[in-house]
Every structure is written in C-alpha cells, then in structure tokens.
C-alpha cells in the first residue's frame, strides 16, 4: 500500500534580515491510497509549500515524509503534478505534451501512441492529438495537463489550484472530470484550492490550514465527493448540509484573515 505519511513536518525560510519565517510547523497526517484530499486556507498559510515538499521540489527542515514507506528526497515519477496554467509546453502538440514523460524515459513516439489516444479519450480530447497546445482553450489545456500527469501512472496526484484560472462553467465540468478520474483510476489525489465550494466537492477529506506558522487547523470528512459521483454537482451544492459546511468554513477562514489583518495593524 502506498500511503503518504507526514510526521511533524517543519519548514522554515531564512529571511535576509536574519529572522526566520515558519512556513509550516508540526504537520502530521496520513493519506491512504485512493483518498481524495483537498487543502484549503487563507493565502500565506503554506498550502503550496506543503505541496512542493510532497512533490520533492523542497526539502523540509524537519520531520519525515514517506510515500509507500520510501522517504521523499526529490521529484519523482510516482508523484504527478498538475499546475494552475502555463505549465504546458507550447512548442509541442497535445500528444507530444501528453507522452513527454514517457519519451523522456526512453519510449519511442510510435509506442506511446495507443496510450496517448486512450488518455486523450478519457479526458475528452479525442482527435486533438496533433493540435498545437497554444490553440486550445484554458479548460482543454488543463485536460491535457491531467492526461500528461496520468499517463505516467503515478501513485499520488498533486494539483496546485488546477482550476483556478477557468471560468465558472468550464470549472464545473472539470470538477466532474476530476471526480470521474478519481473514481475510475482509484488514485490518491491531493488538491489545493482557494475555492471553498471546490474544496467541499473535491474532498473526501478536507484540511483547513491556518497561517503563521502554517499548520493544520481542522480536518473534515465529507460525503459530497461520493454524492457528486452519483448526481449532478449543482444538486449537491443545493443540499442544506453543503451550505452548512460552506458557511462554517467560510467564517473560519474569514476569522483567520481578520486575525492576520489585526496582527498587522
């Protein structure tokens, strides 16, 4: 079983004046295989730092982090990443973007073709293989980014505000797609977002983080992702439980923001 286990992670950044900023402090959690986790928090709470540590782009200053028992010491193929936007390679076509990882590890273009077509179909881009990526709309580009990450068959998928730059309609479609992929592939997925609704919908588990120092403030276990697989997302959002949770989390984050502002004043 490839579970993600974080035990008392610390991350401090030195500042030019000599003081240190505690971006993360004493973060511990276990993410079981196949779980869908969304992470929410006010800006500056260390969400992206946490994600970068899990991806291996940063090394934590304290604590331990393992995936399937193996410590994480750098970026690896077992952790796929989907970024907000602009992380596609514009000089390549859709299928060249999708099989980039495979080709970098020595596969020939011809061999990857069936796999690429399969994944393009899953994300709804069949027939777009030879289109240059700069000609795609924002939503389609994120579908390419998803396929590019999934084709590597990672144990863990990390998403850094993947739908942040999309319009409301496209966003809703993409949320369904993410749920569908989670269900069909059974991958562990960790999503960072600032949208409370998105966090509720795309989180079987939900972490709310608090800033200064960045820490886990509260954890929820939510049913909405399961519901979203069976019914329309808008119906899920209309449920009273959904509204209740949304208001609770919103006011929680609101209070944190207030605190920060007050602390600054």
């Amino acid at each position, binding site marked *: 079983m490839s579970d993600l286990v974080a035990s008392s992670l610390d991350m401090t950044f030195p500042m030019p004046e000599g003081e240190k900023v505690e971006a993360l402090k004493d973060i511990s959690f276990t993410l079981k295989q196949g779980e869908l986790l969304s992470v929410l928090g006010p800006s500056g709470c260390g969400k992206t730092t946490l994600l970068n540590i899990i991806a291996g*782009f940063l090394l934590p200053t304290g604590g331990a982090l393992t995936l399937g028992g193996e410590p994480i010491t750098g*970026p*690896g193929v077992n952790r796929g990443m989907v970024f*907000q936007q*602009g992380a596609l390679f514009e*000089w390549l076509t859709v299928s060249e973007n999708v099989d*980039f990882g495979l080709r*970098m590890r020595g596969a020939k273009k011809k061999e990857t073709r069936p796999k690429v077509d399969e994944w393009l179909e899953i994300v709804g881009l069949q027939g777009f293989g030879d289109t240059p*990526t700069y000609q795609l709309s924002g939503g389609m580009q994120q579908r390419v980014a998803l396929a590019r990450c999934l084709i590597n068959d990672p144990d863990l998928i990390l998403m850094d505000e993947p739908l942040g730059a999309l319009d409301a309609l496209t966003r809703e479609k993409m949320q369904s797609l993410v749920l569908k992929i989670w269900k069909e592939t059974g991958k562990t997925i960790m999503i960072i977002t600032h949208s409370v609704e998105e966090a509720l919908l795309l989180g079987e588990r939900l972490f709310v983080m608090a800033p200064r120092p960045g820490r886990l403030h509260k954890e929820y276990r939510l049913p909405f992702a399961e519901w979203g697989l069976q019914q329309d997302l808008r119906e899920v959002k209309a449920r009273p439980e959904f509204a209740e949770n949304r208001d609770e989390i919103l006011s929680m984050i609101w209070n944190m923001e207030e605190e920060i502002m007050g602390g600054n004043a």
Partner: protein
Amino acid sequence: MSLEMVRLIVGALFILMLCALVWSVIHGRKIAKTEVTDLVFGNPVKALGGWYWVITGVSSILLLWFYFSWDAARAFFPNAANEMCQVAKVDSELNAMRSTFPMQSRLLKGTSFLDREGKLIDRTRRTINKSDIDVGLRDRYLLAADSVDKLLLSRVAEDSLTAENKAALSDIASKIDAVTANLADPGFPGPASDAEQKAGYEQPGWGEGKKEIPDIPNTARGRKFNNVSAQVKAISSEFAKIRNLDDGYKADIKRTSDELKALQASSSAEDAAQAKIITKSLDKILKRIDDGNIFPPGALVSVEDSLKRFNAEQSKQEGSLKFIDAIAMPGGEIRAGSTACTEQGSGRWLPKPSDTLATLVNISDPTVGFKAVPLLWYEWKPASEMLAFFIPDWIADLIPGEYPRHTSDGSINTNLKTKVLNFATGNYNSFSLPIPAGHLWDSIMRVLSGLFLGIVLGVPLGLFMGLSRFAKGFFDPLIELYRPVPPLAWAPLILTIFGINDDGKIFLLFMVAFAIMVISARTGATGTHLSKIHAAHSLGATNRQIIRRVILPNSLPEILTGIRIAIGVCWGTLVAAEMLAGTTGIGFIENVARKQSNYEIIWVTIILLGLLGLLFDLIMRWIITKTIPWRGKG
C-alpha cells in the same frame, strides 16, 4: 514673360505658402483644443480626412518628382542639356564682369570696396589713438593714415579716370552692344558648316559618353550661345585689364608705403610691436588700393547699361530653357567648367534612376564587375581544396617517420607521410564544384560566418549563464567589459591583429553577434516559468533533458529576436569594417566609389544594402512565424 515677372510670381507664391503654413499651425492648434481625444491614442481617425491625403500626396509627389525630374528632362528634352551648356559657357565667361555690377550682388563692387576700406582706415586710426607709442610717432602714423585715405578717395574723383581708360570703357560698351545685337539676330551665326554639323551629331548624347553633357553645340540656339561665349570671353578679358591707375598715382602709393616702413623702422624697442601692427594694417589697405579696381561713380555706367541690355537679351533668347531648368532640374543646374559642362546640385549627388540602374546592370556583368571582381557570380573550385579546409594539416605530422629529403639527382620520393599531407592540404586532382563568389557573396558570407559563430557559442553560454549563478558571475564581467564599446571602435584594433582579410571582419562580427546572442539566450533561459521546469521534473526528465527540451525551446522567441537584431547590427558593422580595410565587399565598393565621387555606384551600393537588409529581415520573419507560432499565446 520677363524675368522680373517670374520672380514676382515666385515671390508671391512663397509668401502665400508661408502665410498658409502659419495659418495651418494656428488653425490646427484651435482644432486640437476642441477635439475630443483618447488619452492614449489621441484621435488617429481624424487624420484620415481629405486634407491629410492632400498633404501626404503632395509630399510624395514632390519626393518622386525630385528623384525622377532629371531623368524626365533627359527623356523629354534631350537637347536641353547641350543648349544649357552653351548658355553656361556664356555665364561662366561673364561671371567676373557681372560681379563688378549690382547684378549678382546688391552693391556696385566699387561702392562696397570704398565702404569697407574706409571703415578699415577709421579702425586703424582708432588703434593708433589708443596705442601708447611715442607721441611723435603716433602723430606721424595719423598723417600716414590720412594720406592712405586721400589716396583711396582720389580714385573716385571724376578726373582720376585717364582719357585712355575712358576710351577703352566706351569701346567695351559698344562691343557688348554689338554682341547683344548678334544675340538678337535670328540669322547669327549663320548656317553650320558640314564639319560643325558632323561634330555635333557624332558626339555622344547626354549621359551616354565619358562627358556628362555633350559640349559641341547641336542646335541653332546652342551655336548662337557658343559663338557669343567666344566673343564675350575676349571682351571680358579686355575689361579685366583696365585699371584706374596712372604713374603719378603709383608713385604716391609707393611713397606712402615707404613712409610706413620708415615709421616702423624708426620706432623704439618698446613701440616696435605696436608699430608693426599699425604698419601692416595700413599697408594691406594700400595694396588693395593698388589693384586699381575703384572707379569714379559714373565711369562704368555705359558698360553697366550695355551689360544689362545683354542680360535682358540673353534671358529672352534662353526662352524655354529657363523653365526646363526651374521645373525639371530642381535644386540643380548645368555649369560650364574649363574643360566640360557638368550637372551640379541634385543632378550630381542624386543620379538619374535610369543611370543608377544602368550602372547596376553594368557591374552585375561578371566580366565587368567592380575592380575585376564580379558582384555576384560563381567560380569552379576543386572539391579537394574544400575538403582540405576541414582537415587539419598536422594529422600528417602524427604519422611515424620523416618527410622525405630531395635526392642527389633532384627528385623527391614520396612516402605515406607526404601522401597524407597532400590529402590534408588538398594537393591532388579532384572534380570541381561551382561555388558562389564576388563582392556580394563575400559580404554575405562574412555576416553569416560571424553570426553563425556568435549563435553557436553565444546561445549555449547564454543558457548556461541564465541557469547558473556561477556562470553568470564569471562571464558577465567579461562580456559587459567589451559590449558597451561600439563595435566600430574595436575595428581598428581587431583588423590590425587579425589582418585585413576575412578573419578580422568575421571576428569583429562574431564579437557583435556573440554579445547579443548571450544576452538574449540568457533572458530567455531566466524567463522560463518555474512551473514548466517543475512539471518536466515530475514527469521524470533529467536536468540535461530539461535544458534541451524545455529551457531551449522556451527561450527560442528571445533567441530568434536576438538573431534578428544581430543580423542588422552585423550588416552595419561589416559595411563600416569593409570601408576601413579590405579588397572585396559592398563596403569596399562604396568606399572606392566615394573616393572617385562616383555617385551612381554609391547609390547602387546603398540600394543593394537596403535590399539585402530587407531580404534578411523577411527570411528571419518567415523563420520566426514558422518556428515559434506560439509566441505571445502561451
């Protein structure tokens, strides 16, 4: 229409245009105040109104006319230049004589002379008064100044003119009248002789021969002016000999001059310097008076009147030529020199388009070329030499053994070492290939070689510097030390070190391109979005693959823009470097043409360089749209 009328109309038009200019500025300001404008773009649509096109059209037509006018004149009035040449001969013969009278200047020459010298004498008097020389000496200098003044004024007295001179002047006046009558006589100088006619027809036409303009008269009007020019030449030299001098007057001048020298000699040691200055300035005035060009006010009136009548008749006889000159030769004229007639002004420095084209066609002919080198052609080169270029000669040295020595019967035996050396130096028979050659090709190859080296070395270093703090720290000072110096400032040094052949120029261009390519590649590399690198990392790419597959393609827009800039700068530097030193290339052609004042070839090189610049830019634009269509859309 008389010349006065023409001047009046032109003057009125000029004043009208000035008024229109002032009015348009005032009116424009008034409109600008009331117009609703966008803060950023103003109101560009407004400029498309009717008047905008009128103004643009007029300026374009004027420019086109300025360029094509001389060509049009030659096409429509092929004889005009020949006739104008004859008129110019008359003008050049009469130039000295006319300058005596208020014809080319405002004042009679004598009047302005008197005025100027009188003022100079007064100034010298003031100098004498202010000086602190011995009082006795000062008084004697003042007396000398008075006598210089008197000498000057004595020449304007009516009785100063000798009877001989009076007779000579009235003789000249009547001779001028006789020439004027010739000019007015439709029969003068009578039908051309067969020999004259033949000479006229056989000479090359306008712009055809070695002489710019045929100078043997070809038409009745031309022959008339040619004959008149011979006559006025004699009159003019006769007039130039008349001096308002006589022996008594000359003696007076001599005495005054001696007195001045004596005064200076008698001055004491401390006065010497100032005395010398005073003597010198008075003596200079005396020398100018001695030239004898001052006449009593009425003495030259008869000559002046005759000359005025001649001028009026000349203008009348020139007729249509005046208008051709004004309209078809804007900013220029035809002038007669001592040996030939030439086009001056715009006709000289802006050669006729047809001549420029003919020159281009002429030097494009590979058998003509420029300085025995074709502009752009090919030559057969053995393939062995080309191969040898890529093989270093020292591989022969690596073969064990020694090179053979000559034997006592004078023959040289070959061994493996010599065979390899022959191969490495291309010293064997092989088939030949046609290779482009010529001035244009040399210039293009220099630019491309310099650019190629700059790209091949500059791009990797630039990427490296964009990725590594160490590389940036190490190489930045080296590049920033030479880059701010204008490339041409390096040229004399580089050309001295590397020689005037291709090496020096290519190295100079390499320096130019290298700096630009390093900076653009570095900008491209540092501009790579971190998420792209992260994405590539998590997809399993190695560092080397990321540089090759992510950072390099991501930097392509900056690199290609850098190449486009580098091409332009390289061309500019190359042309100047070729002008400095070398024996081929477009800059070389232009420099030689400059030394020969060959305006046609100068323009040919300017046009060729413009076309080449355009061609290279179009190619680069095409490459850019083909290779980086995503630019600005990512």
